[in-house]
C-alpha cells in the first residue's frame, strides 16, 4: 500500500519588505546584499498573525485537497522555532480550529528550520505502522531576527501543511536523516532573537548536512540526481540551495519550481515545505521530487516522492502557493518594525 502526501496546503502572509528597504535603513549596500543572498524581498506577518494562525490556514488548505474527514486525522505535529507559547502547544489550538481530535496525538516540534520535515517523518512512521489513518505535519514560522543583523534580510513568515496517509497524491519512496551536534545557529530560552555563527553556518553546517543526507538517500534508494524532475533544498537564502544542488549534481532547471526564497525570503520551518508545495502545484503524475531540509543544530531530512495521478484532481481544490506569493503589499521599514513589535514599548 502506498503511503505519502494525501493533501497539502500553503500559507504566506501578504506583507513584503524589500532587501533594498532594509539596506536603506542600515545604510548597507543593497546591491551586494541582493546578489549575495539572491533574495529580493521577504514576507512579513500581519499584527494578528503568528505560527498558529499560519498553521490553521495552511492546514485548512491541506484538508480541502485531501478531502478527508478531519476526525480521521490521528496526529498533528507542528514544527516551528516561533511557537507563540514557550509552554502550551500550538498543535492543540490548530487541531481544535480544524475540527480534529480529541482522539489525537499532538506535540510541537522544534529543530530550527527542519522541524516540519521531522513532523512528516513521524506521521509517515505512524501511518506505516498502522497506528493512525492520517497524520498532519506542519512547518510554519514567523522568524525572528535582530534589527540590523544579517538575518533580517531573509527571516520571513509562512508555512505549509501536509497530510500523510494512504492513497496519496505523492508517494513517499524513502527518507533519510543526517544529524550531528553542530552549533551554527541557536536561541536561548527567554531570548528574543537568535544568534548565529556567521560563516560557520555554511560549509560545516548547511552544506555538510544537506549534501550528506541527500547523497545517503540517493544511495539508499539507488537513485541519481537525474532521476528527479524536481528538487528543493532548504533555502536560508537563494545562494546556498543553488550551491548545494550544483555540488550534488542537480540542475537549475530541477530547482525552478521550488525556489520560493527570492520572493518571500526564508520561512524557516516552512521553507523547504513551501518549495515542495509549489512543486506539487506544478507537478504531473509520475514525476519524481527530491526534498532536503536543513535545521541548524544541525540536521537534514531528505525525501524522495513520486507524484501520482491523484494530483490532477486535488491540486486545484485549494489556493496554490503562487496565490499567496503573488498576493502582496509592500511595506516600509517603519511599518515592519511596528508589525513585528520591534519597538520598545510598542
Amino acid at each position, binding site marked *: 500500500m502506498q503511503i505519502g502526501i494525501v493533501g497539502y496546503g500553503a500559507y504566506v502572509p501578504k506583507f513584503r519588505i524589500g532587501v533594498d528597504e532594509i539596506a536603506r535603513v542600515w545604510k548597507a549596500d543593497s546591491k551586494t546584499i541582493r546578489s549575495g543572498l539572491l533574495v529580493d524581498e521577504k514576507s512579513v506577518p500581519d499584527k*494578528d498573525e503568528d505560527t498558529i*494562525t499560519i498553521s*490553521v*490556514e495552511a492546514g485548512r488548505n491541506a484538508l480541502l485537497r485531501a478531502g478527508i474527514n478531519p476526525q480521521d486525522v490521528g496526529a498533528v505535529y507542528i514544527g516551528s522555532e516561533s511557537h*507563540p507559547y514557550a509552554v502550551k502547544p500550538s498543535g492543540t489550538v490548530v487541531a481544535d480550529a480544524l475540527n480534529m481530535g480529541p482522539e489525537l496525538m499532538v506535540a510541537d516540534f522544534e529543530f530550527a528550520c527542519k522541524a516540519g520535515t521531522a513532523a512528516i517523518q513521524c506521521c509517515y512512521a505512524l501511518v506505516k505502522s498502522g497506528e493512525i489513518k492520517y497524520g498532519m505535519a506542519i512547518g510554519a514560522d514567523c522568524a525572528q531576527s535582530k534589527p540590523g543583523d544579517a538575518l533580517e534580510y531573509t527571516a520571513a513568515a509562512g508555512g505549509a501543511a501536509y497530510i500523510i496517509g494512504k492513497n496519496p497524491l505523492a508517494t513517499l519512496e524513502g527518507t533519510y536523516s543526517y544529524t550531528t551536534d553542530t552549533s551554527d545557529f541557536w536561541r536561548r530560552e527567554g531570548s528574543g532573537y537568535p544568534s548565529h555563527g556567521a560563516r560557520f553556518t555554511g560549509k560545516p553546517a548547511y552544506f555538510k548536512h544537506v549534501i550528506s543526507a541527500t547523497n545517503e538517500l540517493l544511495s539508499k534508494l539507488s537513485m541519481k540526481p537525474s532521476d528527479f524532475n524536481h528538487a528543493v533544498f532548504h533555502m536560508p537564502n537563494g545562494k546556498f540551495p543553488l550551491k548545494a544542488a550544483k555540488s550534488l549534481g542537480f540542475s537549475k532547471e530541477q530547482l525552478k519550481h521550488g525556489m520560493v526564497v527570492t520572493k518571500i525570503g526564508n520561512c524557516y520551518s516552512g521553507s523547504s515545505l513551501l518549495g515542495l508545495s509549489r512543486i506539487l502545484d506544478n507537478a504531473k503524475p509520475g514525476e519524481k521530487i527530491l526534498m532536503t531540509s536543513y535545521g541548524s543544530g544541525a540536521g537534514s531530512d531528505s525525501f524522495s516522492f513520486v507524484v501520482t495521478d491523484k494530483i490532477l484532481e486535488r491540486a486545484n481544490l485549494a489556493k496554490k502557493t503562487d496565490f499567496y506569493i503573488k498576493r502582496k503589499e509592500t511595506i516600509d521599514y517603519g511599518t515592519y518594525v511596528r508589525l513585528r513589535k520591534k519597538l520598545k514599548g510598542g
Partner: protein
Amino acid sequence: MPYKSVPLFWRLKKPKYNLTGTKCTKCENVYFPPRNLCPACRRSGDIQELQLSGKGKILSYTIIRTPPEGFEHYVPYAVAIIRLDEGTNITGQVVGDIEKIRTGKRVRPVFRKMHEDGNDGLIHYGLKFELVD
C-alpha cells in the same frame, strides 16, 4: 481589555474557531452567536447545533481609531456587522486593506489572533473576515 477569563474563552472556542451556531428546528431560525434557548419559540423550541459557512456580506462597518484597552496594537482596524449566508448576523473584524471595505461586499473567514492578555497572558484566537476578491 476584553474580560480576562481563561474558562470564558475556552468555553466559546467552538463558535469562535469554527462559527458553530445553533438552529431552532421548530421555527427554522438560525442563531449566531449560538443560543441555548430559541427566543422565538422559547421552551417549546428545539435548538440544534448548526455549522455555518462563514460566508456573508457586510451590512455596515466602522474603522476603529481609538481602541479600547487591549487593542492598542491593532489600530486602525475595521469592525463590521456581517450578514451570514445562513441568515444570521455576526460582528467581526475585517482584515486586509481597510480602504477597500464597502457595505454589501462579500467576505469569508480567516483564522487570526483576536487579542492577548498582556505579554504573559493567554493569546485568544478566532475568526476575522477578509474581502472576497
